[in-house]
């Protein structure tokens, strides 16, 4: 398998740019005359850039909007407002053949390898299906050969092309999902919790595979996960989401070593560290309560109801994700300040 035609393109330039993306799901009431009584603000003004060849980790708890963000980027949902451009072309305005071209460039790996593969299709059909929609990606008669190449690339036996998904284990199925995403030689892959359904010993194999494929094909990843240890391992930059917004974004080092947003600090301190010695020295922040409903988020800063620093201004003024005095990476907190988030290793 050869690298995509884009190998001449500059590593580090912006490939995907997302600007103030919003997705509100309406809540309606009434049987015959439905009227809208509110909206679930799943994604509420998200902006970021993805550079060529990098991995942007997106972390947050369930309900923070990270999966909706993935679905928006794949155009599986229509945004309420906002813009996103892939290599300068508007993702949400494209239609017809232009949209088909854009989609070829951006693929997705799903979370659950048990439900995201059709049990009635052979592995060859599953991985080869993208070629039916994009016949120009595999010249006539070369489809089977391409599928076998893909199986080889993700570390599966190319002779297993006629097997069905149930004949594979969880980790192998996730490799099939990755092969399917690679089929059209995309430049961006959105991974939505790709390893959370897998056992620990299998998880490491899939993470290594994703990293190796990135080096080989110059891929850019948006890596969505709730496991902060996995994200630290794979990501170059990290965005932390809370109730539909990015509260802090920065390099892996800025987020894990120099976090300034109280939510990020609390999230990091809650991660269990597999080392009893370190555990005893850790200074944990215990958040009280649960995440508020995205249908009725608190005014001002969304995090203020669980925040120990909250003051009057937090309810009135919505803090913007801008560089703060404490550290020059964007953090959406009025009182951003450093705290040793993890103990010295």
């Amino acid at each position, binding site marked *: 398998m050869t690298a995509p035609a884009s190998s001449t393109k500059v590593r580090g330039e912006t490939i995907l740019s997302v600007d103030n993306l919003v997705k509100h799901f309406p809540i309606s009431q009434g049987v015959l005359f439905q009227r809208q009584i509110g909206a679930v603000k799943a994604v509420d003004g998200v902006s970021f850039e993805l550079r060529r060849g990098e991995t942007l980790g997106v972390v947050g*708890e*369930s309900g923070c909007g990270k999966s909706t963000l993935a679905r928006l980027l794949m155009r599986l949902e229509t945004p309420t407002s906002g813009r996103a451009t892939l290599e300068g072309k508007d993702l949400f305005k494209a239609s017809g053949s232009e949209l088909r071209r854009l989609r070829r460039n951006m693929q997705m790996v799903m979370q659950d390898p048990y439900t995201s593969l059709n049990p009635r299709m052979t592995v060859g059909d599953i991985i080869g299906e993208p070629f039916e929609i994009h016949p120009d990606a595999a010249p006539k008669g070369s489809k089977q050969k391409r599928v076998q190449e893909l199986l080889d690339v993700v570390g599966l036996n190319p002779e297993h092309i006629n097997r069905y998904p149930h004949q594979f*284990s969880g*980790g192998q199925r996730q490799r099939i999902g990755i092969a399917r995403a690679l089929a059209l030689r995309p430049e961006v892959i959105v991974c939505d919790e790709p390893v959370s359904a897998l*056992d*620990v*010993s*299998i*998880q*490491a*194999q899939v*993470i*290594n595979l994703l*990293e190796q494929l990135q080096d080989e094909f110059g891929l850019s990843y948006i890596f969505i996960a*709730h496991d*902060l*240890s*996995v994200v*630290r*391992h*794979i990501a170059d930059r990290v965005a932390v989401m809370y109730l539909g917004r990015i509260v802090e974004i920065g390099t*892996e080092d800025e987020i*894990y070593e120099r976090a300034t947003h109280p939510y990020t600090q*609390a*999230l*990091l301190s*809650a*991660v*269990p*560290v*597999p*080392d*009893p*010695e*370190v*555990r005893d020295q850790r200074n*944990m922040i*215990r*958040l009280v309560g*649960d*995440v508020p409903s995205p249908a009725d988020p608190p005014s001002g800063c969304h995090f203020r109801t669980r925040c120990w620093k909250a003051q009057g201004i937090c309810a009135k003024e919505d803090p913007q994700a801008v560089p703060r005095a404490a550290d020059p990476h964007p953090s959406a907190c009025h009182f951003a300040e450093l705290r040793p988030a*993890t*103990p010295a*290793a």
Partner: protein
Amino acid sequence: MTVEPTPASTPADGHLLELRDLHVEFRTNEGVARVINGVSYHLDAGETLAVLGESGSGKSVTAQAIMGILDTPPAFVRSGQILYRGQDLLTGSEEQRRQVRGKEIAMIFQDALSALNPVFPVGWQIGETLRQRAGMSRGDARRRAIELMDLVKIPGAAKRIGDYPHQFSGGMRQRVMIAMALALDPKVLIADEPTTALDVTVQAQIMDLLADLRRDLNMAMILITHDLGVVAGVADRIAVMYAGRIVEHADVRSLYKAPAHPYTKGLLESIPRMDVRGQELSTIKGLPPNLMRIPSGCPFHPRCPYVQQVCVDVVPHDLVLGDGRTSACHFAQEVRDDSAR
């Protein structure tokens, strides 16, 4: 850990709960799956034992066998003993079993949403045990249910007692399950992946709650999990399971410092650490075995970096290492010395 032992309630020489050489198999149409192959462990009052393993290692089935809630068929206990205060639960009558279940040994399950009944209020479900087993009146059961909900720190317990499971968040549902398990004041609490379905900040809350309850009520706890991080914080001892056997058994600190079984060593090396930005993760090659065709000798030998001919031919016994730990590996000493380096 400063826990007062309760010698009055435990036979002087015995343990509170002890499993001896338990074997469980699943008889299915495709064949017999040997799910548990000689598991032995013990638990004393006030202590926390973590049972660690990946899916299919038999950790949950062991718990179901203790509770007597195995699905039979297909599951059959082939041999072994489960001793509670010296009395074998497996040979007792169903009525004796029922006296122990819930009252002496209680269990909380992984998925609170499917473990709770969606069509009854949570207060009614917590009170059900009290009415059926403790013979309480409806009013008393209701009052006790509110106390229990307070105990597990559900805010506004009196107001929420009439709410249905879907009106609670994931963390609160798990608290309701814990309240149900505590209703009859059990001496042993088995927690089967209690936080796997929860977010990290909520997970931390629940693990704290379990640790507090265990201390305040002087319960013994068996914590079943696949998460090496969760275990590190709360357990006193760890039993690592693989293919239905306990491959390593040690106190928490020595296990994390120097694992003495290649499987434990591989597991610890393959998890990304948040406090260390690693290079390529080391992996355990291959897949867990099919329980219908467990490899000869040591079941881990096809995946093991230390494998020798003896591993293929001879099933390793539990090798007792100096500091009271065991490892079912022919080369346990060597593995531990390698890890300690």
